[in-house]
């Protein structure tokens, strides 16, 4: 590891810690720092303890993990399709997950409880797996990465129109619930759902970390990777499993969250100045967690009574990064 890499890791770890603490300290209700600490230790005022333990802590953990998962999914997809503009929301993978969730929420009906949420996770996984499968199938025939992105966007449109049709026939209450879900929300993972969410995401993140070597080989091209002894077919399947599980778990629980998956891998590459996955993957993971925590803090600033939808905040950070990357693509060496 060179010096720059060390600085990256140190800075991101510190930022993550600070943001996590801020996420616990800041909220619509003013709670003194000492009381937050007391609440975490199970002491102090019971009302504040409830707010910290039932609302702020699960939301901060969810944001951290969801951000990491989306960012790593984006990186895996960008390497898999050797396309810097790939990401779960652009390739239609999130739309596939959306469709799965919409089928459960709008047609199966007003379920509640943990069983209902686990069903939506499975439906979201099925939806994202179908879209990923389609994209991979198209990728064999369509060599241009721009064209593949357009196909992804088209598949996304098809999924969206199916969702509109479902919406049209659903009861008002279900539509309302679905619309609110669509705005993105890290607070929907409550304390008792958190273990499930964590296990899905941590499992997929751990599996992704094991993919570092074959991912580096894929950067050199599939033929070269095969020459290096990488089983390209199996790597593809693993990448799809990991991204499918992460996108589906995050989407089912928190709604379709835009831009984190697309933009964070670029932020990580710009910081590192390298595309070597050995460092890039953990840096992407940390940066994704930081950005999601920051967005989560910004949705409910102290002193405001209402909560901004998450998807109103993420594009503010994500979109400028993508524009910067496109404008400077000749100077950024990983494009070449």
């Amino acid at each position, binding site marked *: 590891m060179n010096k720059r890499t060390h600085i990256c890791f140190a800075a991101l770890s510190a930022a993550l810690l600070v943001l996590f603490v801020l996420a616990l300290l800041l909220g619509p*209700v003013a709670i003194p720092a000492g009381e937050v600490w007391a609440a975490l230790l199970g002491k102090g005022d019971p009302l504040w303890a409830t707010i910290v333990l039932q*609302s702020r802590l699960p939301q901060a953990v969810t944001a951290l993990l969801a951000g990491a998962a989306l960012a790593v999914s984006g990186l895996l997809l960008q390497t898999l399709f050797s396309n810097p503009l790939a990401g779960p929301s652009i390739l239609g993978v999130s739309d596939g997950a959306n469709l799965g969730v919409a089928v459960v929420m709008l047609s199966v009906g007003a379920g509640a409880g943990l069983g209902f949420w686990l069903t939506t996770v499975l439906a979201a996984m099925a939806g994202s797996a179908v879209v990923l499968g389609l994209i991979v199938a198209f990728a064999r025939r369509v060599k241009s990465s721009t064209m593949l992105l357009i196909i992804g966007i088209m598949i996304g449109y098809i999924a969206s129109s199916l969702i509109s049709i479902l919406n049209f026939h659903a009861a008002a209450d279900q539509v*309302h619930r679905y619309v609110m879900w669509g705005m993105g929300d890290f*607070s929907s993972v409550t304390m008792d759902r958190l273990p499930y969410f964590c296990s899905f995401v941590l499992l997929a993140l751990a599996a992704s970390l094991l993919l570092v070597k074959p991912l580096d080989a894929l950067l050199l091209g599939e033929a070269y990777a095969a020459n290096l002894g990488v089983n390209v077919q199996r790597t593809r399947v693993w990448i799809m499993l990991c991204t499918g599980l992460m996108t589906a778990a995050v989407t089912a629980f928190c709604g379709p969250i835009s831009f984190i998956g697309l933009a964070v891998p670029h932020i990580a590459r710009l910081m590192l100045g390298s595309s070597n996955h050995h460092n890039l993957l953990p840096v992407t993971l940390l940066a994704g967690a930081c950005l999601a925590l920051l967005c989560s803090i910004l949705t409910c600033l102290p002193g405001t009574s209402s909560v901004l939808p998450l998807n109103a905040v993420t594009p503010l950070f994500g979109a400028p990064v993508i524009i910067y990357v496109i404008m400077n693509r000749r100077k950024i060496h990983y494009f070449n």
Partner: protein
Amino acid sequence: MKKTLSVLLLLLSLNAFADQTGRARYLRIEKAEAYTVVTVLDPWKKGSEIGRYVLVPGKKQVESLPKGQVIKVPVSRAVIYTSVHSAMVEAVGAEERIAAVCESEYLTSENLKKAVRDGLIKDLGSATTPNIEKMLLCRPDVILATPYENNSSGNASKTGAPIVQLPDYMEQDPLARVEWLRFIGLLFGAEERAESLYREVCSQYESLKALAATATRRPKVMTERKWGSSWGVAAGGSYIARMLADAGADYIFSDHPGSGSSYASVEQVLERGRDADFWLLKYTMDGGRQMSRADLAGDNPVYKVFAPYQKGTVWGCNTISTPYYDLIAIHPEKVLAEFIAIFHPELLPDYKFLLYHKLK
């Protein structure tokens, strides 16, 4: 001089009260000998109008009419977009003049539902995009629409029938909303029935309010649930907030800015509502199923920390299987009675609940 003026003002206000008119903020009714001018004000833009309607009794021949959309009354074939307005027309006894409605699945009156099943009332589908060909077939002579902020009635103008905009839901006083029945009465030739209904509702509401004022204790009340990342709440200026106060309760968001439905963060609801005495919520469940405490906790376990959940003082109203939205518009005194019976059961012993039930 000053004293006489204030006495005069007091007399005037008492007189206005006795007359029970002029509560509605967005409705003006001016009667002339040969016609009545009804002005509907824009709730979203102060000082402007959404519509001005000149109601002319059918037989009369009038030479010069004031500016406005002329409607021959009583109307005989009405197209009605919103189920609450259909219920208002039924309340003044003119249901046989309804030619078609939109979204008939939201009707709660058995009479009207039967008329739809028998084909006496047509269903034009979605209220945002009604089936215009079916509407033309109905040959309507008036269309009752509900305006939302910045919308237009679109295609309905193709029928040539006057479109009456009814933003009654924007009123901030429950009785003001009932006053809109007077307009409905004028349109359907049921003026007297509408007037007497309005008066009766007002007097019953006032006496129930007076009854609730005798309660010795004002319980603390929270409402509704979390939707997405925020909690849906009725703002402090809304008529729900007003009715909760009239029912002798302290609403936890009575100082929340705004006059309609609004949002609060979960933290704020926890801060203010954790030790509430009662929790009232509306929900929709198919087939008239009643929500249970287990359903509520399954929806989001955060609900379990609220005192009403723990004490079993959560009351729910299934808005699909009860006429909640009709009653809140036409008979707010009945909804007020429910609130009083929940908060102060000793004031209304043996009360039988129409809308709300305690979550088991």
